[in-house]
């Protein structure tokens, strides 16, 4: 499977000899272009049109993050997998309120189930999260009865609120108290980690959408509006609990990240570069980890699971089979 490239060194990214070449202060380094799936840039990297043309030819998507680790934008190359039919069906399932609500419900239900899986896992390891678990399971019953997107989002918000309350019990670390969900900018270390992890998940989902016929601008739970991309936010809901949140619990639990890994500035709290690298290393190896897939019957990586999720969605909008969100089986 092709890899994601992560740039933390500053320099120039070039097309040379029909492959990628990075020129930094440590010298020149060639990267095999046939092995690259997407690129994430966290440092100062210069590019030019020749490179963008090459990335477009090779179907490589390029994401930018700013100094603080916030997502800034994406070079989304020319579509190679075009299907007017799928886009038409996507739009149909958005414009029909009933159809849209159906898909949105499935996203929220899938996310709730995965949240439940995470909490059950830590509950079985002696963490005091029983109250939140019961509360979430109660709220989950109401998802099917929602009659409007706004009502559904309210339930989703309530589920998240109860879920985040359990973070302090799971972590048991004074340097990483949750308090309340804050963003733009996050007000404490844990919120910073959550924001960083979530933006990585959004971009990963976007990268996988680019490799399907789906249009990333048409989302169902997150409204299609003047925002650039919505569908990746929907799909990320499924994977955030079982990937990003698990990584956060692991890194803090194993003391791989601590208070000293964060910097406090006027614009809020940000992760130091070393901390970002540690997080991404953990995420990258998680993406490559495989699970036995029940339907397929062979090992499937988490990155591939994201793609399969999108294929299921394609089938749903084309009326071939109903979308059933992925739920982790631990």
């Amino acid at each position, binding site marked *: 499977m092709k*890899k994601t*490239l*992560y740039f933390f060194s500053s320099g120039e990214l070039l097309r040379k000899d029909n492959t990628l070449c990075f020129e930094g202060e440590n010298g020149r*380094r*060639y*990267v*095999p272009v*046939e092995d690259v799936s997407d690129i994430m840039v966290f440092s100062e990297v210069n590019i030019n049109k020749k490179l963008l043309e090459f990335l477009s030819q090779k179907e490589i998507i390029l994401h930018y993050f700013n100094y603080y680790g916030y997502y800034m934008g994406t070079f989304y190359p020319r579509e190679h997998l075009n299907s007017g039919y799928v886009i038409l069906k996507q739009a149909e399932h958005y414009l029909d309120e009933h159809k849209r609500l159906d898909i949105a419900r499935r996203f929220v239900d899938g996310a709730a189930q995965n949240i439940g899986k995470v909490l059950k896992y830590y509950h079985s390891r002696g963490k005091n999260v029983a109250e939140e678990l019961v509360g979430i399971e109660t709220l989950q019953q109401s998802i099917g009865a929602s009659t409007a997107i706004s009502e559904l989002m309210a339930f989703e918000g309530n589920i998240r609120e109860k879920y985040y309350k359990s973070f302090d019990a799971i972590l048991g670390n004074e340097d990483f108290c949750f308090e309340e969900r804050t963003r733009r900018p996050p007000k404490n270390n844990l919120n910073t980690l959550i924001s960083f992890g979530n933006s990585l998940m959004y971009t990963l989902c976007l990268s996988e959408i680019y490799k399907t016929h789906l249009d990333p601008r048409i989302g169902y739970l997150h409204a299609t509006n003047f925002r650039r991309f919505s569908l990746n936010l929907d799909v990320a809901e499924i994977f955030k609990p079982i990937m990003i949140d698990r990584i956060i619990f692991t890194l803090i639990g194993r003391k791989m990240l601590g208070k000293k890994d964060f910097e406090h500035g006027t614009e809020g709290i940000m992760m130091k570069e070393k901390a970002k*690298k540690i997080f991404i290393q953990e995420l*990258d190896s998680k993406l490559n980890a495989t699970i036995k897939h029940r339907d397929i019957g062979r090992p499937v990586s988490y990155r591939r699971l994201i793609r399969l999720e999108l294929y299921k969605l394609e089938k749903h909008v084309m009326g071939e089979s109903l979308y059933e969100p992925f739920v982790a089986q631990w």
Partner: protein
Amino acid sequence: MFVILVYDVNQKRVGKVLKKCRQYLTWVQNSVLEGEISDANYTKLKMELARIIDREEDSVITYNLRTTKYSTREIMGVERGQTGNMI
């Protein structure tokens, strides 16, 4: 699979071989490249190399490992080319 590729090619063609290999694998040392590669890309690379080299004169060897779990990699002296996807 994981591949280690070693070549000994006439000077007339060595540049072409290097440029082609660098599109698929990571350069680690003079005449040595390595990296993860899919079956499809591996076949493609072999076909492209077959067109470049002179079978009477040149030599290309690949070591194909299904997994790197049971092996280690050691370096003495200078590490010329870096691997990995964090740059």
